[in-house]
């Protein structure tokens, strides 16, 4: 009871500083690569959009630009979704699609954002949305419109309205922060004077599991982001680490050293039903459920150096998955189940690789040398990972074809350990 109270108090303190953290912890985006084929899209300023707290059309433009998949054509003047437009004219200006819209304030204080996506080639309307939201959700509304544009023009779901969680370190202070996928709208979920590593977002997006060293050793906690409630998921003798959720959110795979060296276990999300899944004399760690929940990928040194293996979700015989290089760690499976991302050490450099599970083709996705902790976007199109730039920890994003690239940096210390949140209802 006192333990719980202490946690609640600490959580309350963490929430208390959210407002102050908001002001100075914003992340900066630097784009360094774009897709092979960019779709030219004209995005007009939305009529009357200056009445909202954020400029909706600017957020949409930034989202689409960052994705590397679009070439943005400026329109000069605002165009509302009801303004008559000459699509042939836009086509001759090089735009394959045109985005128009407007913002209106409703009597209840909400902002009503309306938009239309027009195909200039087929001279047809591709999509239209009307989204009413409280002023503080203006950014989310803009991201949702960007998601819709991405989906209609690319053919897969956009992930601009999703969120990321990551750890910052400034001086002796560690923070678990949550932000929009573009690094804006930062909120602090946990503040500590001891390290925080391996955050993992629950499939429903309401909780984050992570490893905190506040008890002077690694212990796994699960924190409800909404209620601030925080429970110890695994605080067994020895080290407790590497939490990973099953796709249905009912259980987690974890790495525990309660019987000597680090081994993979599964545990229900309420802490019950602990089961040992691996049984070796070496290291088995970093478990990750496959997209269908039937298998677990993990890192093991059973062949000498660390390599990635796959076994059933209840343990049993394991098959080796990686064969190139002597050091392959941190497996992550794309939500569509097609790709395996991992960090490989080659010539002393730690770099992000992706393996096509269907054809066994391996591709290096980064040209940095201290890459760590990859995390797939929920639409399986991008990977976010931690790396170093100018001696500072930074987050990088790369499209799974390696072409589109951008970085999220902060002036306030190191930023690391990203986990990309799920699609939200």
């Amino acid at each position, binding site marked *: 009871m006192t333990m719980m109270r202490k946690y609640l108090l600490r959580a309350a303190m963490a929430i208390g500083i959210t407002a102050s953290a908001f002001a100075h912890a914003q992340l900066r985006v630097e784009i360094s690569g774009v897709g092979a084929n960019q779709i030219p899209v004209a995005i007009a300023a939305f009529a009357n959009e200056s009445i909202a707290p954020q400029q909706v059309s600017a957020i949409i433009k930034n989202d689409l630009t960052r994705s590397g998949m679009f070439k943005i054509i400026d329109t000069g003047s605002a165009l509302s979704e009801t303004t008559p437009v000459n699509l042939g004219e836009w086509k001759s200006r090089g735009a394959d699609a045109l985005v128009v819209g407007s913002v209106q304030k409703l009597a209840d204080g909400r902002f009503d954002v309306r938009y239309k996506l027009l195909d200039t080639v087929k001279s047809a309307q591709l999509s239209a949305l009307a989204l009413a939201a409280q002023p503080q959700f203006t950014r989310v509304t803009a991201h949702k419109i960007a998601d819709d544009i991405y989906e209609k023009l690319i053919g897969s779901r956009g992930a601009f309205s999703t969120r990321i969680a990551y750890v910052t370190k400034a001086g002796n202070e560690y923070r678990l922060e949550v932000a929009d996928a573009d690094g804006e709208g930062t909120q602090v979920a946990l503040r500590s004077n001891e390290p925080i590593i391996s955050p993992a977002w629950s499939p429903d997006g309401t909780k984050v599991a992570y490893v905190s060293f506040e008890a002077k*050793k*690694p212990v796994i906690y699960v924190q409800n982001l909404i209620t601030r409630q925080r429970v110890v998921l695994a605080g067994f003798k020895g080290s407790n*680490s590497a939490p990973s959720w099953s796709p249905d959110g009912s259980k987690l795979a974890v*790495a525990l050293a309660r019987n000597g*060296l680090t081994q993979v276990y599964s545990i229900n999300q309420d802490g019950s039903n602990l089961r040992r899944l691996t049984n070796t004399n070496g*290291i088995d760690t970093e478990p990750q459920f496959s997209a269908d929940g039937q298998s677990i990928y993990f890192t093991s040194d059973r062949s000498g150096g660390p390599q990635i293996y796959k076994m059933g979700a209840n343990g049993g015989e394991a098959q080796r998955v990686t064969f190139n290089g002597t050091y392959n*760690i941190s497996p992550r499976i794309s939500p569509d189940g097609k790709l395996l991302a991992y*960090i490989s050490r080659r010539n002393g450099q730690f770099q992000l690789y992706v393996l096509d599970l269907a054809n066994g083709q391996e591709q290096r996705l980064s040209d940095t040398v201290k890459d760590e*902790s990859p995390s797939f976007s929920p639409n399986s199109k991008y990977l976010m990972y931690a790396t170093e730039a100018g001696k500072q920890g930074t987050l990088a994003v790369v499209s799974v074809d390696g072409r589109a690239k951008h970085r999220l940096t902060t002036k306030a210390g190191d930023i690391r350990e990203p986990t990309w949140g799920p699609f939200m209802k």
Partner: protein
Amino acid sequence: MRTPITFSLIASSILLLGACSSPVKLSDKAPVEDHSGHMAGAGTGQVDPRTVSTVNAGATDALNDPQGVLAKRSVYFDTDSYIVKGDFQPVVEAHSQYLLKNKARKIIIQGNTDERGGREYNLALGQKRAEAVRKSMSLLGVPETQMEAVSLGKEKPKALGSDEASWAENRRADIVYP
């Protein structure tokens, strides 16, 4: 409803206090413990009754001797190695003997790694180092209940540089008495 009960409790407390206070003899001497090993000045009358002899509770604990082998609490490892080297066997043995003599004492063995590589894999490697020390002490008879092997991986580096000297300093397991 509560008032009468509260009142009666207070009333009975006062009565009890009154009953207790009467037999106390104000002339009683405060008890004095004798740590000198003999009856201080018993029957001799030679020792100044105002003498104060100090007992230092920590003085007999070898753990606090800064010159003793127990002051050494770190075991260093080679790159990619998880074997306790001969150089550090005396450290492991001394702490094992201490723990065997002092059953109430417990230790945490914290394994560390250098900064190269992934956080989770390094955590597992640090555990391997802590575990190597724990096993050595277990072989010397130290009960499991007195030891816990944990890892800090590369999260709490003692040396902050990115050079061989710093890496060597961080390839380490520390014996910690909480």
